[in-house]
């Protein structure tokens, strides 16, 4: 019975397979470090975060994936996973701004329910070319890693996010005009 938040929150299972953390990952939104499993408002995650990869060897490159496994809603995740961001060739000790942004950052805007947004870090063995998928939805992180021989993830983090004013429940009706 693992107490790892990634397991308890079913990130391991829905998005990833079990792995051992072997890299240092820090995600900072507005200069504030993200706590795994915490909840953020959409207004706080509008812009891309600063993702810092700790370590010593600048020659090691990493790929970062950000997905939403609860698209369009956690009870009905037909579009699992929705790809929000894809950055490759990030050198160790630096941050995401030093990598290649293959798929641009899309601000999380959950409409129904409380979504998880997962950051997954892979260690690249070589500098490789990764192609952007044709569309963002129904992305599969496992398949993606297998396709590019990225191996198991080396680090992962996630946060929860729901509609700005709450009430993304069953009776959610999109309201035009005021929010």
């Amino acid at each position, binding site marked *: 019975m693992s*107490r*790892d*938040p*990634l397991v*308890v*929150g*079913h990130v391991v299972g829905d998005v990833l397979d079990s792995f051992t953390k072997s890299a240092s990952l820090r995600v900072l939104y507005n200069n504030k470090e993200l*706590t*795994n*499993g*915490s*909840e953020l408002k959409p207004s706080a995650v509008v812009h891309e975060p600063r993702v810092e990869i700790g370590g010593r060897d600048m020659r090691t490159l990493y790929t970062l994936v950000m997905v939403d496994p609860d698209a369009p809603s*956690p*009870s009905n995740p037909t579009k699992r996973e929705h790809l929000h961001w894809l950055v490759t060739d990030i050198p160790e000790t630096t941050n995401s701004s030093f990598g290649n942004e293959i798929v641009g950052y899309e601000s999380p805007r959950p409409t129904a*329910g*409380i979504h998880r947004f997962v950051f997954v870090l892979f260690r690249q063995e070589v500098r490789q070319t990764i192609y952007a998928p044709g569309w963002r939805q129904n992305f599969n992180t496992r398949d993606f890693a297998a396709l590019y021989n990225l191996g198991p993830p080396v680090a992962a983090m996630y946060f*929860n996010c729901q509609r700005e004013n709450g009430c993304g429940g*069953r009776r959610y009706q999109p309201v035009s005009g005021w929010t």
Partner: protein
Amino acid sequence: MWSSGLDNHSNNKTNNIDNGNSGHGGGSRIISSSSSSRSSPSSTSSILLRTPRRRTMEEVWKDINLTSLHHERRFAPLPEPHHHHHHHHHRAMILQDFLSGPCFTVSRANAAVEDIPLPPPPPLLPPTALSLSSGRELQYLGGGGGGGGGSALMNGHSRSSSNSNGSRVHGQANNNDNNARSGPFMSPSFSDAVIGPSSPAGFFSFCSKKRVMPEGPGIGGDRRYKRMIKNRESAARSRARKQAYTNELELEVAHLLEENAKLKKQLEELRLAMDAQLPNRIALKRSSSAPF
């Protein structure tokens, strides 16, 4: 389960109306069955089981069908089936809604004995409520006041549920007797308890605020079941979310405490090292800089 059961009842009732003829023949039967039905709920008062309730209701339904009331209702045979169906529909809705409502009473065939038109009894309720039958039936009966009466009943019932059953029955019986003579009525004792919408339409919408009109037997229950499953999953997700965050915080606290201890220790060691290594005080020293 309830909705399908109720619809069966309503179907049975319609059939019975078409088939049964005399009210008198069943009169004595009514009394006996009513007494038996009355006794059964009290015996099961401590047990809230669906099966016994259904039996009781079936008995009551039969009683109602056999009463002279239906006999009287026969006067307008043509609109009757539609009328009954309409009523059944109303009642089915009330029944289903009451299933999730506060308290109900099963109407006793008691009142049915006295030539009073009895609508199908309200949906089955906790056995303690069963004793309040007859008054409710009368309440429901009041034609246009049916909706208001229903809501009054609900309210009155919720108030009276805590009262002792025996006394209430008597009070009800008295009211019923009085009301029976006066045609369509709304029991004055209940009128002040009306809270919900007074119109029948309002009442039904009030009852079914969470659900659309049931489309048929079994579908309402199935939808409810699915909804329950979804709710369970959502609750499980919510618990997982909470637990995951708590775990993360605990891990972080442990990590931070460890780091803090380590850093403090390091600080102490460094201080000691510094003290040991700096014997020379920075003091004024003499130096000669004069040219001579």
